[in-house]
């Protein structure tokens, strides 16, 4: 036989992956433009580069996770092995907590500062996330893969994006505000986006 089926099939899968990357590239750029536009219009926090090094590093890691790693997994552009996937989830949670609250987590336990309330930062986080969620739904990002869990990766990506946007905008150092209005709002957004994403996946994938 002159055919090597395995090679042809592999080439076909690679072609499909490249096509997916081309398809979702504009949606990712649009999301980035929107979040960038939000930061430009609303203004970045004046102490952005004066934050504790670990916190700034965590925020940069969150950008990397939300713009590259999580969408790549969710859209089927990257298939890391299970241990690495678990590592990514843990890294995303740890980076989000550190990015929002800073390294001095002991202050949170003190219970000082603001409690849960609907303020500008909650509205900004959820509002930003919902726009990115709409871009994701319209581009088909939640149904790019056969597995329903892919929707959770996309939801995680957009929630982290909204969190980093609000953290780079709001200069608050009140641990209560950062906990409830930044991290809490991102968690709420993650919940909403996950439910919406799973419904969209079910509808578009028929199961």
């Amino acid at each position, binding site marked *: 036989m002159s055919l090597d*089926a395995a090679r042809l*099939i592999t*080439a076909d899968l690679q072609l*499909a992956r490249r096509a997916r990357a081309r398809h979702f590239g504009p949606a990712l750029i649009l999301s980035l433009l929107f979040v960038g536009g939000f930061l430009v219009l609303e203004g970045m926090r004046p102490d952005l580069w004066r934050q504790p090094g670990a916190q700034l590093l965590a925020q940069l890691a969150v950008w990397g996770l939300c713009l590259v790693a999580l969408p790549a997994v969710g859209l089927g552009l990257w298939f890391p092995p299970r241990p690495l996937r678990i590592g990514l989830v843990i890294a995303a949670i740890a980076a989000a907590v550190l990015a929002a609250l800073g390294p001095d987590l002991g202050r949170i336990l003190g219970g000082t500062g603001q409690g849960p309330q609907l303020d500008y930062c909650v509205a900004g986080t959820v509002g930003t996330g919902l726009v990115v969620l709409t871009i994701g739904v319209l581009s088909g990002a939640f149904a790019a893969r056969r*597995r329903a869990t892919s929707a959770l990766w996309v939801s995680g990506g957009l929630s982290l994006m909204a969190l980093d946007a609000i953290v780079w905008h709001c200069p608050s150092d009140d641990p209560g505000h950062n906990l409830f209005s930044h991290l809490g709002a991102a968690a709420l957004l993650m919940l909403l986006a996950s439910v919406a994403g799973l419904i969209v996946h079910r509808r578009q994938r028929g199961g």
Partner: protein
Amino acid sequence: MNVAQPGLAALMDRYLDGDERAFGQLHAALSPRLRGLLGKLVRDNATAEDLLQATLLKAHLAREGFVVRGPHPDAAVQAWYATIARNLALDHLRGQVRERRRRVDGGEDRDLMQEIATDLPSVEEWQVDRDTAAEITRRVHEALAQLPAAQREVVELHKLAGLSMAEISERLQIREGAVRVRAHRAYKALARVLGPGLFLAAMQLWATRGQA
């Protein structure tokens, strides 16, 4: 340290999601078993290898239709591939019988068809619809027209007339190795011109029609 290997169903799931590494692992796990099965059915290693390649291609094109049924997902994957392989082998054997009947020219082999009767699903179940097939055929003929005459002739005799490499060698009065080289170059050129997806579809179409 021993790292647990993912099962066939887990690999299939990832392959269906587009993971080419998972396909590679699935291919490595299934190929020896399918090769053995096909070898037993057709009793010829070269043909079994041909049919194994065709099985993988057909399964790839039909993969969206795969669903796990029953309590044993790994067994379901193996059974799905085995069914495709067996259907292809049976179609191949039927084609051989038809060929013998044509050659015998008297109908004395008519009962041979009954000898390989099967209650398995027919290969037609895997066929693409007619419109798609017509479009693929048109594109393939356009691509074939771009090949050098010597390569085109080999492809036409192999895939369209259904001749084996040995028969083509005999007909063209050239060595079988030369036929294989021409075929290899021709298929590479076709895959380049058509792209992997369309080329796979053409192979599937040929595989189903070549036996009919």
